[in-house]
């Protein structure tokens, strides 16, 4: 897939509304994302950013509207199906395999791209090409040194990197990062920014982020959400200059 649709936007979210009972979490959200264009989603807590991620990745279907990935309608498909298409996500709260080593965490993610991923009889110890790929990912997210430690024993910052590494290791076309720097110390944030910048050269990113340093350093476009609606979208300069945005959101930081 994808071959026929190289010109289609990598992601198109079309009038997506999500209601939980009386609560409207998303109100007719519209946006597009071109290949190679990194977009940040910002907005105050409760604006619907993670809900939007959940709708895109299949956690739950939208109440209305459609989601297109590389020209294919993925609305309402289950998460594993969407992930197989090449749309990966990381989570705001670490969502790892706690008793696996960092190495084994990444292994399971790398395995999904292999033809014998569900073989019952092949010995995993004898798959050197996979081993190589696992180390490449570990290197990329700076975890080689702690590769053989269990995920639950890693420092919080390393766990955040592993969280990204898991999504990255599935070799996605589009990577959704949900607050990759949340809970990380300012000193470590710089390391994470560098990591995200290096990833952004390989794969299209859509990230939710509060830290404006991170947003400004990687985002080509910004989408501002407020009470479940899109308040503004455009280049960082356009968004910064938008008076509504200044009032509703950026104003808080000045």
């Amino acid at each position, binding site marked *: 897939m994808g071959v026929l649709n190289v010109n289609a936007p990598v992601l198109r979210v079309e009038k997506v509304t999500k209601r939980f009972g009386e609560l409207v979490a998303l109100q007719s959200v519209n946006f597009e994302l071109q290949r190679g264009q990194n977009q940040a989603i910002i907005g105050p807590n409760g604006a619907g950013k993670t809900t939007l991620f959940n709708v895109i*990745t299949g956690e739950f279907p939208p109440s209305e509207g459609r989601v297109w990935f590389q020209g294919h309608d993925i609305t309402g498909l*289950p*998460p*594993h*199906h969407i*992930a*197989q298409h090449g749309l*990966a*996500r990381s*989570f705001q709260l670490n*969502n*790892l*395999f*706690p*008793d*696996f080593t960092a190495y*084994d965490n990444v*292994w*399971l*993610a790398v*395995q*999904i791209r*292999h033809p*014998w*991923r*569900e*073989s*019952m*009889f*092949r*010995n*995993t*110890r004898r798959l050197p090409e996979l081993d190589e790929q696992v180390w490449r990912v570990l290197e990329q997210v700076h975890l080689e040194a702690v590769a053989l430690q269990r995920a639950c024993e890693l420092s919080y910052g390393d766990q955040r990197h592993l969280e990204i590494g*898991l999504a990255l290791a*599935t070799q996605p076309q589009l990577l959704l990062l949900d607050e990759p720097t949340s809970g990380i110390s300012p000193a470590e944030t710089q390391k994470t920014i560098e990591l995200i910048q290096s990833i952004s050269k390989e794969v299209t990113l859509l990230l939710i982020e509060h830290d404006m340093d991170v947003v400004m350093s990687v985002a080509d476009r910004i989408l501002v959400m407020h009470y479940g609606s899109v308040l503004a979208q455009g280049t960082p300069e356009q968004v910064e200059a938008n008076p509504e945005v200044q009032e509703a959101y950026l104003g808080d930081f000045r």
Partner: protein
Amino acid sequence: MKQDNARRWVELGLLALLALWPLGTTLGWYSPFYFSLMTRIVIFGVALLGYDLAAGYTGLVSFGHALFIGLGGYAAGLVLVKLAPTLGLDPGLWLWLALGTSVLVSAVAAVVVGFLALRTRGIYFVFLTLAFGQFAYLVAWNWLGFTGGDNGLTGIPQVSLALPGLRLELSDAGTYYYFVLVVFALSYALCRRVVQSPFGRILVGIEQNEKRTAYLGYPVIRYKRRVFLLSGVLGGLAGGLYALLQGFVSPDLLHWHLSGDIILMTWLGGVGTLIGPVLGGFIYLFVGNWLSTLFARWQIVMGLLFVFFVLFSPRGMVGLVQQGWRRLWGSST
């Protein structure tokens, strides 16, 4: 790697011990009772291996594993009592017919129960599997004309094992023991292979974090169904072997008591280790039997032992050994 080698030696050692077990009877060290008890333990070992794949590796803790053991038992028994004599087959083929039916029937049951129960998780899964098991138990108990009801199904004929150029009389206790041991060893090799395979990795991934496994792109339910099928089939095979050993099948083989025993054995020995549950089965049945000759309230000891392991070693006896090993040889895993 070092641990792998160590495990290989433990496996071979235990297998050698099992292979030499009949020698003790020959030399008069223990009564033939302990010989047949050991046959039973090895048979339950096959079921425990299967249970561990689902419960230990995948986190699918069912409270109805007796369903597969019992169905496998009744399937083998009914085929031998009602069908085989009418077919005019070479009696040497009856064994394969009986065990084949055990496997088939338990496979169908695993597919059906898996389809319905694997949609649920946690306590709902426990209750559903328990309900299916008890349903089968009540059918076996009440369907007098077919299953023999609470008297059980009696009169299962002795069978022989026919292979090209070889014929073994399984009515001989020693021969049957070795037959069972071979089935067990093959089942163990299969399970070990499976847990080391890419599929096995997915299973543990599901146990560790089902949601993330799905988000990596794995259709989780498919793998759950597959492992449940494998687990059920091994249970059915064990049931068939058990029916042939006993010469009758009672509804007890379907009762939730047995499902509970399976859980106890698994956690006692070490869930998610393959060797552990089998070891747990040995302790529960063998030591339990020995204790019962000493005093009537022997289950108190078993209960305390179980409490001890649940509290202090979540991976049971095998976990305790592994901890000791690490302390002795450092943490070079």
